[in-house]
C-alpha cells in the first residue's frame, strides 16, 4: 500500500489567484511596454529584410536554374538542336526528382515542410519552426522548381520566411507570442517581395497564418511587408504577374457570370485539392521506395511535356497566355487545364517539394479563359472583357486553395491597380471561398492538418486544447491501493490522504480501476468480505498520455469525480485532476486573449 506523495502539480486555491492576477493586470501603459513594442516593430522590419532578401534570392535562383536546365521557354528556344532539347525535357525533371527524393530522406518525417506546418506552429502556439527542416525543404523546393516540376514557388517562400522569423525569435530568446509574430513577419515579407504586393503580404499573414487581428501583431508585420516591398522594387525589379491595359468595363449582367465562375471555380479548387491528396495516398501504395517516387513523377512530367510543354515549371507563360483572347483554342484550354491539374497532383503527391499556389493560378486562369471562350462561342460576342473572366477564374480557384479570399483580391488589386478588375474578382470570390469552405474545408492546408490530426475548423482555442496532452498535466498526488486491499484499510488510507478517490494498482504497476470513498463505504456497510477491487467504478474512463486535453474535457463531462487515471499499456502513470484541466484551460484562454486582443 502506497500513500500520496508530495504535491508536484497541485490544484488548489493558488491556481485561482494566478488566474485573477493575469486577468486584472494592466494592459501595458508606460515607457517600458512602449519600448518593448517598438523593439518588436524594429525586429519585424529586420526579419522582413532578411526574409525578403532570402525570397528574392530564391526567386532569382529558380530563374537561373530554369535557364540553365532548359526549362524556361527562353532557354529552350535558344537551343537549336531538337534532340538535346528532348533529352533535357525528360532527363532534367527525372534527375531533379531523384536528388529531391534523396534529400528528403534526411528529413525526420520524410516529407518537406510547407505552409501547413507554419499554420500548425502558430495556431497551436508551438512556434519554434525547426531550422534544419526549413533549410532542407527550401533547398528541395528550389531544386524541384529549378528542374521544372509543376509546383508552386510561393509556398516554399512562405515557409522559408516563417522559418527565418522563428529563428530570429529564438536567437533573441523571445517567448511564444513573439515567436508567432516574427513568423508572421517572415511570411508577410516573403509574399510582399515575391508578388511585390505589400498589402497582400500583411493580409496573408493575418488571414492564413495568424488567423486573428491584433495591433500588436499588425505593426511588426506591416513593417516587415514594407521592407520586403522596398527590397523587391530594388533587387528583383520584375514585371507584374499580369498586365491589364485600360479595358472595357464589364456590363452589369456579366457580374452574374463572374459569380457563376466563382461557384464553378470552387468545385475546380476542390477537385484540384483532392487530386493532390489522392495522389499522395496512391503514392503510399506504390511498390516504390519514397526516395524514388519524385524521379518517377519527373519522368512522367517530362514525357508529357514533350507533347504539352505548357505544364512544365511554374507556368508563368501559360498564365499570361490564358489572359490573352485567342492564344489558346477552347479544346487546348481544357487539355492544358486537365494536364496541369494532373501534373501538379503527380509532382506534389509523389514527393516533389513545392507549393500549390502558382499551379492554382495557372489552372484558375485557364478555367476563366475557358469560360470566356465558351461564352464567346455561345453569344458570338466580343472579347473585350476576356481578361476579366480569366482573372475571376484565377481568384475563384486560388482563394479556396490557400484559404485566403482577401489576399487573392489584394494581389489582383496591387498587381493590376485596376479597380474594375478587382470588383469582378470580388464577385467570384464571394461565392467561391464560402462554398469551397463548406464543401471541402477552409484551405488545402487545413485539410492536410486535419488528416494529420490537427483540426482547426473550430478555431484556435480548440486547436490548442487538441495540442496539449494528458501527459503534460500529469500529477502523482493521489492515493493508490493494491487491488486486494481490505476495505477497512482502503477507507483508512483515503481518509489519511484527504482524497475521495483511490486508484488500484498492483505490484507490477498495472492499473485495475478507480474506487470512490462513497462506494467503499457502501460496500463496507453492506457487510461481507470484500476487497477494494470489488468497488471498482467500471464506467470510469481512463486517459492515455497522448490523450488531448480536448478529449479529456469531453470525457470529464460524463464523469463526476475528481481526477482521471492516466494509463499507458495497462501501466498506471498518475492522474489528471479536473481542476488542473480547468486551470490549464483558463490559462490558455487568457494567453490567447492577450495575444489576440492586446495591443501592446
Amino acid at each position, binding site marked *: 500500500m502506497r500513500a500520496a506523495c508530495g504535491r508536484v502539480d497541485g490544484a488548489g486555491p493558488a491556481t485561482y489567484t494566478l488566474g485573477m492576477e493575469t486577468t486584472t493586470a494592466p494592459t501595458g501603459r508606460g515607457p517600458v511596454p512602449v519600448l518593448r513594442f517598438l523593439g518588436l516593430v524594429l525586429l519585424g522590419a529586420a526579419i522582413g529584410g532578411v526574409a525578403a532578401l532570402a525570397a528574392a534570392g530564391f526567386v532569382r535562383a529558380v530563374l537561373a536554374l530554369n535557364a540553365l536546365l532548359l526549362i524556361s*521557354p527562353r532557354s529552350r528556344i535558344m537551343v537549336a538542336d531538337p534532340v538535346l532539347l528532348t533529352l533535357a525535357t525528360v532527363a532534367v525533371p527525372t534527375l531533379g526528382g531523384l536528388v529531391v527524393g534523396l534529400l528528403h530522406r534526411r528529413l525526420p518525417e520524410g516529407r518537406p515542410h510547407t505552409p501547413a506546418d507554419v499554420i500548425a506552429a502558430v495556431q497551436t502556439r508551438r512556434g519554434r519552426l525547426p531550422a534544419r527542416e526549413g533549410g532542407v525543404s527550401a533547398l528541395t523546393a528550389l531544386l524541384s522548381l529549378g528542374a521544372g516540376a509543376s509546383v508552386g514557388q510561393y509556398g516554399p517562400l512562405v515557409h522559408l520566411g516563417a522559418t527565418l522569423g522563428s529563428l530570429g525569435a529564438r536567437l533573441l530568446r523571445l517567448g511564444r507570442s513573439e515567436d508567432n509574430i516574427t513568423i508572421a513577419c517572415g511570411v508577410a515579407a516573403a509574399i510582399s517581395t515575391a508578388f511585390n504586393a505589400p498589402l497582400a503580404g500583411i493580409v496573408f499573414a493575418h488571414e492564413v497564418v495568424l488567423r486573428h487581428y491584433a495591433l500588436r501583431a499588425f505593426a511588426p508585420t506591416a513593417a516587415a511587408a514594407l521592407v520586403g516591398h522596398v527590397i523587391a522594387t530594388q533587387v528583383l525589379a520584375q*514585371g507584374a504577374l499580369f*498586365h491589364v491595359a485600360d479595358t472595357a468595363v464589364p456590363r452589369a449582367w456579366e457580374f452574374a457570370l463572374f459569380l457563376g465562375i466563382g461557384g464553378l471555380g470552387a468545385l475546380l479548387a476542390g477537385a484540384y485539392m483532392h487530386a493532390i491528396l489522392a495522389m499522395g495516398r496512391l503514392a503510399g501504395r506504390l511498390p516504390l521506395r519514397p526516395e524514388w517516387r519524385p524521379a518517377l513523377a519527373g519522368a512522367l512530367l517530362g514525357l508529357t511535356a514533350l507533347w504539352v510543354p505548357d505544364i512544365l515549371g511554374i507556368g*508563368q*507563360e501559360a498564365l499570361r497566355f490564358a489572359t*490573352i483572347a*485567342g492564344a489558346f483554342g477552347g479544346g487546348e484550354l481544357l487539355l492544358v487545364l486537365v494536364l496541369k491539374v494532373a501534373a501538379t497532383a503527380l509532382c506534389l503527391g509523389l514527393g516533389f517539394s513545392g507549393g500549390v499556389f502558382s499551379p492554382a493560378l495557372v489552372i484558375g486562369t485557364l478555367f476563366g479563359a475557358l469560360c470566356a471562350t465558351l461564352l464567346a462561342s455561345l453569344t458570338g460576342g466580343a472579347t473585350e472583357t476576356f481578361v476579366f473572366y480569366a482573372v475571376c477564374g484565377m481568384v475563384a480557384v486560388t482563394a479556396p486553395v490557400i484559404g485566403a479570399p482577401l489576399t487573392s483580391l489584394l494581389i489582383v488589386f496591387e498587381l493590376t491597380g485596376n479597380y474594375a478588375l478587382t470588383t469582378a474578382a470580388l464577385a467570384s470570390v464571394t461565392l467561391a471561398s464560402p462554398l469551397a469552405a463548406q464543401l471541402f474545408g477552409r484551405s488545402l492546408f487545413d485539410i492536410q492538418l486535419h488528416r494529420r490530426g490537427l483540426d482547426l475548423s473550430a478555431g484556435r482555442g480548440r486547436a490548442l486544447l487538441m495540442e496539449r496532452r494528458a501527459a503534460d498535466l500529469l500529477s502523482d498526488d493521489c492515493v493508490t491501493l493494491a487491488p486486494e486491499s481490505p476495505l477497512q484499510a482502503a477507507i483508512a488510507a483515503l481518509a489519511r490522504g484527504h482524497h475521495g478517490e483511490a486508484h488500484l494498482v498492483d505490484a507490477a504497476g498495472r492499473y485495475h480501476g478507480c474506487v470512490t470513498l462513497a462506494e467503499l463505504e457502501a460496500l463496507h456497510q453492506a457487510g461481507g468480505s470484500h476487497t477494494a477491487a470489488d468497488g471498482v467504478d467500471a464506467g470510469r474512463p481512463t486517459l492515455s498520455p497522448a490523450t488531448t486535453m480536448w478529449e479529456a474535457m469531453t470525457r470529464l463531462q460524463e464523469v463526476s469525480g475528481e481526477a482521471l487515471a492516466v494509463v499507458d499499456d495497462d501501466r498506471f502513470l498518475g492522474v489528471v485532476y479536473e481542476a488542473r484541466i480547468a486551470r490549464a484551460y483558463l490559462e490558455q484562454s487568457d494567453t490567447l486573449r492577450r495575444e489576440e486582443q492586446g495591443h501592446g
Partner: protein
Amino acid sequence: MARRGLLLALLLATSLAAQAEPLRVLSWGGAYERAQREALFSPFTVQTGIPVEVHRYDGDLGELRRSAARGEAPWDVIDMTRSQAMAACEAGLLAPLPADLAAPAPDGTPPREDFLPGAIGRCALTHTLFATVVAYRPEAFPGRRPTRIGDLFDQARFPGPRALQRTPAVNLEWALLAHDVPHQELYRLLSTPRGLDLALARLDSLAAIHWWQEGETPVRLLAAGEVVMASGYNGRFFDAMVNRGLDIEILWDGQVQEHETWAIPRHARRPEAARAFIRFATTTERLVVLAERIPYGPARRSAAARVGRHPERGVDMRLHIPTHPLNAEGAIEKDERWYARTLPRMQALFDAWRQRRQERDAATP
C-alpha cells in the same frame, strides 16, 4: 590625361598617314552616311590624313563570311547592329577590341561609367542607339491619330496599307505588344510556339503589307502615298520630315531600340587605323556632332547631355532622339542575345509564313 591621349592620337595619325591607303568603312548609306561623313569621316581625314572610303550594305553579312573563309576582309571597320556583331563575334568573324579602346569623357569619367550598360562588348563598341518606329501620314486619318503600337494593326480605325521590314525582328515584337503583353515578358512569350503563332496571326490580320529591305524604302512609300503607316529607322524618318519637309509623324510607342556598333573584321588590312578611327568616332565630342545631324541616341551619357540643335535646321535634336524621356516611355530594347541565337530559325519561320500568305493571296483573287 585627355591632352596626352590627343597627342598620342596625333602622333599615331601622322605615322599612319604616311601610308596613303584609305580606311575602308562599311556603313548603311543614305542620310545616315551623309551625317557620318560630316561628323566622323571628314574630320577623321582632316585630323589624321587617312582618307575614308565608304562602302554600303543592307546588313547582309554573307560577304564578310565568305571573305573570312578566304582569309581576307573587304573592309577595315564595319558599322553593324549589336546583334549581328554578337553573332559575328561568336563565329570568329571579328577581331576582339582592346579594353581601353574608348576615350574617357571630357571630364575624365572612365568609359565604363560613361557608356550605357551593355555598350562595351568584346568585339564591338556601341556608338549610338537607333530605333525602329512607325511613321504615318497624318492626313490619312482625319480627326484621330495613332497613339499605341496596337494601332498599327487596327485597320478598322486606321485604314490603309502598311509597309513593314522583311524580317521577323520588330514585327514579332509589335504583333505581341498589340496583345497588351508587358515589355518585360515580350521575349519570354516569343520563345514559345504559342507566342510565335499569336504574333504571326496578328501580322496575318493585316490586309495589305508592303515589305521593305532598304532603309529608304519606307520613306519613299510614305512619300508616294503607297502606304499610310510604315516601320522604319527613326533617323530616316527625321531626315524626311526635317530636311525634306515630308508630312509624316512618328509613333514613338513600341519603338524598338538597338545598339549600333563599330567593329573590326578579322583579317582587316589596316587594324591600327581602324582602332584609331573607332576611338575618334566614339569620343563625346564626335557623338554630339553626329546626334545633331541625325537623331540617334548617343551611347555616352556625357554626349546625350550635350546634344543641342540641328546646325542648319535649328531643330532641338533632343526631342528627336529615341532615348529622350518623352519618346522612350513605351520603348523596348531589342533582345539581341535572343536574336543572336534564334535569328536563322525565326527567319525561316517568318519566311514560311510569308510564303503561305502569298500562296493564299494568289489563290483568292
